[in-house]
Every structure is written in structure tokens, then in C-alpha cells.
């Protein structure tokens, strides 16, 4: 059934991760403040994007929290609306990189690509992606599948490290192809890579810093290394759906999400690193990712060319499967 213009409820499409906590620290306080009832629709990036695409003519969703690269695809499909900075005052406060240059929804959190490793199996903390190309391969390693955020980032990071720069995907694929056959597995979820590490099947794997936080917090022998070169990150963005039934509510929600108080609580409870400079970065975050957790661009991290990733997604999938995952 079509949802007509509706100022009483707000449908937020979000990650299915930690939805309870999300309700508690974001949705419910927002409801209290605005009187708008928040309804969550959860799923992974692709599924939700597919639904938005099919639903394009009669959208029933207002806000979409989605990874930057899927956001780029969505923008291209015309699924999102530009945001008037006036309606989301917090956009003026956040770290500059988090504001979309084209005026679409801002990033509200980010994740850093690095090397998750077993501190008991890898003697010295790796300082470069080169650890993966080390012929010794102490303890074995896994690579991210192209289907998870870390996959395309890894192509760019490799290109940046060994090639002409962060857009040199050809070099990225070439170099990854060289170690593809030695990789134990191309993991497709954080659970999978955590499990491989924990069971000692591998000693290291490129991954996002969030994946390491649980293990580090639990005191497991897991470390997260940030290579000196090839520093790529991915952001989660908050987009307003084109034709959203509750546009005003959506704007209020995005602003609320960027509020330093809310960002601090989200950081504490969900481990999402804040983009608002006034928000509190947790100890765990700095233990895992150091200063980059506080200000990623200062530490040399960048998102890569999102339009390149989005535009080449089909050919990258094929190349990855044909050249790397052998």
C-alpha cells in the first residue's frame, strides 16, 4: 500500500546490525524529541538499494543509512535528494570530508581499512600491505571478497601502494592476482573473517577496523595494523529518499544523527566512529585505530573514487572472480 505524505512516522532503512541498540540510542530519543514514530526497515546495502530502486516511483522510505559506495550508485539512479544545509544545521559542524560535495546526504560514521592479525602468530606488527606479499606467509591469510566493502577498498589500496595512485585499479588487480591463489578464503562477512582468525586458520586479513573491536575488547590475541601507505576508508552515509513521504522528519533525523551527543552515544554503544568533532571517541576506537579514529583525513585516510567503484562494479566483480579468486 502506498504511503502518502505522512508527518507522523519516519521509515528509516538501516543496517540490520545492532538494531536494538540503534533504537535505544537514536530512534527512541528522536521519537521523544519530535513525536515522530520511527519504523526501521533493515537489510544489507544491496537488498535495500534494490528495494529502493524498484520502489522508486512510490517510495515508502524516508531516510536510508547506507555505505558510501552504494550511496554513489543510488545517487546515480536518482534515488536520493540533495539536502539543503539550512535544514540540517549539524552538517556545517562535522569533519569536512563527511559533507557530500554534490550536496547529498552526509557521512555519519566511517571505517578504516587495515590488517587484522593474530598477535600470537605474527611476530611483528605489519606496517605495510607488503606483509600479504611476503613469500613466507606466516600462518596464512584471507582476502575480502569483492562483495564486502573492504573488497573494492583493497583493490584501491593495492593500486595506491604498488601503482600510480589510488585510481590504479589495474595494478591493484594485478598484484592481488599474484597472491589470490595463496589466500585461504575470500571472506564475505565479518563473522567469517573473525572465525577464521580465531580458529587460527589464518594469521591475517585485510579488514575494516570495526571488525576487530569486539575481539580487542574481549582481550583476544587480535591486533589491527594501519599500513603506512594505501590508507582507504569507507563511510556510512545518511541519505534522504527522493520523494520521501516525510521529508521534514527525514531532515530532522539526519541532523539528529549528526548531533555530537547522539554521535557519542552511538560510538559508545555501537562502535560507530563519530564525524562530529565534538563527539566523544571511545578508548577502544583509539586502541584499535589510533589517531585515525579521531581524524581520518589527517592520518592520510580517504574514501577513494566512489564513482569509479560504483561505475566499475560489474567489471570489477568479473575481474576479481576471474583473476584473483582462483
Amino acid at each position, binding site marked *: 500500500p502506498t504511503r502518502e505524505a505522512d508527518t507522523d512516522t519516519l521509515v528509516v532503512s538501516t543496517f540490520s546490525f545492532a538494531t536494538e541498540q540503534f533504537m535505544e540510542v537514536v530512534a527512541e530519543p528522536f521519537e521523544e524529541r519530535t513525536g515522530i514514530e520511527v519504523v526501521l526497515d533493515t537489510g*544489507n546495502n*544491496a*537488498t535495500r*538499494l*534494490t528495494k529502493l*530502486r*524498484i520502489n522508486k516511483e512510490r517510495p515508502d522510505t524516508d531516510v536510508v543509512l547506507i555505505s558510501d559506495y552504494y550511496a554513489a*550508485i543510488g545517487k546515480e539512479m536518482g534515488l536520493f535528494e540533495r539536502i539543503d544545509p539550512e535544514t540540517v544545521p549539524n552538517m556545517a559542524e562535522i569533519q569536512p570530508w563527511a559533507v557530500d560535495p554534490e550536496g547529498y546526504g552526509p557521512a555519519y560514521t566511517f571505517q578504516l581499512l587495515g590488517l587484522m592479525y593474530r598477535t600470537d602468530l605474527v611476530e611483528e606488527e605489519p606496517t605495510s600491505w607488503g606483509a600479504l606479499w611476503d613469500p613466507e606467509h606466516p600462518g*596464512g591469510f584471507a582476502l575480502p*571478497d*569483492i*562483495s564486502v566493502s573492504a573488497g573494492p577498498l583493497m583493490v584501491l589500496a593495492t593500486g595506491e601502494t604498488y601503482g600510480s595512485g589510488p585510481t590504479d585499479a589495474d595494478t591493484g588487480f594485478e598484484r592481488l592476482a599474484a597472491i589470490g591463489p595463496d589466500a*585461504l*578464503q*575470500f*571472506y*564475505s562477512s565479518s563473522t*567469517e573473517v573473525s*572465525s577464521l582468525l580465531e*580458529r*587460527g*586458520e589464518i594469521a591475517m586479513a585485510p579488514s575494516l577496523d570495526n571488525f576487530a573491536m569486539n575481539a580487542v575488547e574481549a582481550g583476544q590475541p587480535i591486533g589491527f595494523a594501519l599500513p603506512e601507505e594505501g590508507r582507504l576508508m569507507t563511510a556510512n552515509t545518511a541519505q534522504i529518499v527522493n520523494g520521501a513521504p516525510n521529508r521534514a522528519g527525514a531532515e530532522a533525523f539526519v541532523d539528529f544523527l549528526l548531533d555530537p551527543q547522539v554521535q557519542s552515544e552511538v560510538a559508545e554503544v555501537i562502535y560507530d566512529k563519530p564525524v562530529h568533532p565534538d563527539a566523544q571517541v571511545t578508548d577502544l576506537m583509539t586502541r584499535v585505530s589510533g589517531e585515525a579514529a579521531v581524524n581520518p583525513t589527517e592520518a592520510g585516510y580517504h574514501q577513494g573514487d566512489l564513482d569509479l567503484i560504483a561505475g566499475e*562494479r*560489474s567489471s570489477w*566483480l*568479473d575481474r*576479481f*572472480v*576471474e583473476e584473483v*579468486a*582462483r
Partner: protein
Amino acid sequence: MRRAANLTGVELSRRGTLFALLVPGLAVLLFGFLYPVAATLAFPPDGDPATVARETGSLLTDPYLLPVIARTIRVAVVTTLICLVLGFPVAYLISRVPPRWSGKLLALAIFPLMLNTVVRTYGWLVVLGGNGLLSSLTEGLGLGPSRLLYTETAIVLGLVQLFLPLMILSCYSSLSQQDPRLEEAARGLGASPGRAFRQVVFPLALPGALVGCTLVFAGAVTAFTTPQLLGGARERILSTLLYSRVNVSLDWPAASAVALVMTVLVLVVSALSSRLSAKGSTQ
């Protein structure tokens, strides 16, 4: 099961009755399946029949993708055969033990179905991994460590575990209707248990076994989580390819093409099984 039409119980020939029995099912099938699937396969988001045809053509000629199709067929066929070889005897046993045992055995065969696929698959990670139980076993036997994880064998094992109960139940539904005197008659005529099994028990339960095979084959071709987790990106099969096209590249016309190929594959096997079933028909 093509029964000589004139032997049917009370001849069910009145048009109205047949109509009333068939039409509701067909209507739901049309509305809930044929129409939407045909419409979406032909007109996927961002595509039209021409793009789908083009994608299908390139899929069938891509030298990289042909091995994927071959692997899919191999995995599904091997899985089906293993399920049959393991599942039929279990169903047979259940249908022949005293009733107070059969119920319990059947329950035991059904319980694994209640396990979530992901959790089930996780069990295999524990068993098949490089530091897993199987590896410890082979190492203990002096055979050195073994790792089956992320191989075709792992996919097959996982799928067998997933679909074995399906095969058992299908076979059981046929076997439980069989007159045990027939097997006795065969034994009395000098057939060994094996021969009686092959020539009387099995052919008579063929309808159920074939249904089981069709269900397992279809399941093995379309299953996604198990091959993804146990095979990984390296051992790609059509279903994981389809998943990537929907979920990674969001390339719906290309996904339609994969779906078409999968559909034709299962259709062929299903038709084959119907044909066999008709041929080996009772009475």
C-alpha cells in the same frame, strides 16, 4: 505414475470435478509465480528482453563462466546421488522397522532440518577446517592434516547434510505405501536382499526417490548460503554468481540471464525425472 487410465478408482472424469480440484492451485501458481517471474525475468529493473537475451548469450559463451556452469551441474549431481545412496536406505529402514521405532527414527531424521542454515554450515567449518576435527583425525591417523574447507567437496558435504532429510522423507512417503509381501515374494523366489531391493523395493519406490532427487537437485542448484560459506569465491557456482550480480554489481539483466540458465538446468532434470517416473510406473 501413469496409471492405466481405466484402472483408476472411481473414474474421476467429470470435467467439473477435475476443474474444481485443479483450478485453485493453478490460479495461485499463475498469480504468485508464473506471471511475476516471467515478467521480472523478461523485464528486470533497468533492462528489457533484448538486454536479457544479450546477457544470456554472453554468459553461455564466456570461457570463464562455462566452468561455473559445469561446476554447478557437477556439485548438484554428486549431491543428489549421495543423498539418494544414503537417504533411500534410511527411509527403507524406517519403513520396515517395528512402528515403535519408525517414529523415533523419523523424528531423528527430521530434527536437523530445524537447524538454521548458517549455523549448520558453521558446524562444517569446525569439522572441515585446517584445524578442524577431521584434520585432527587424519593427523592422528598419521595421514597428515587435511583441509576440505573451501573445496567442492566441502560444498557437496554441506549440501548433502542440508538436503538428506528431504530425500529421506520423499522416499519414505513412497516406501511406507509398499506392500511388504512383495519383498517377501522376491526373497522367496531366490532374490538376495540386494536383488530384492534393486528389482522390487527400489523400482516400486521410484516415484518417491525421483521426487527426492528432483527436490535435492533443485535445492543444490539454487542453494546459496552453503556454497558461499563452504566454497567461497573460488568455487563459484551459478547461485553465488547470481547473488553477486544482484547484490554486488546490482546488474539485474545479467542476474536474469543467470537465473534463466539455472531454471533451464533444473527444468531439464525435473522433466527427466517425470519421464523416468512415468516409465517405471506401477500398473
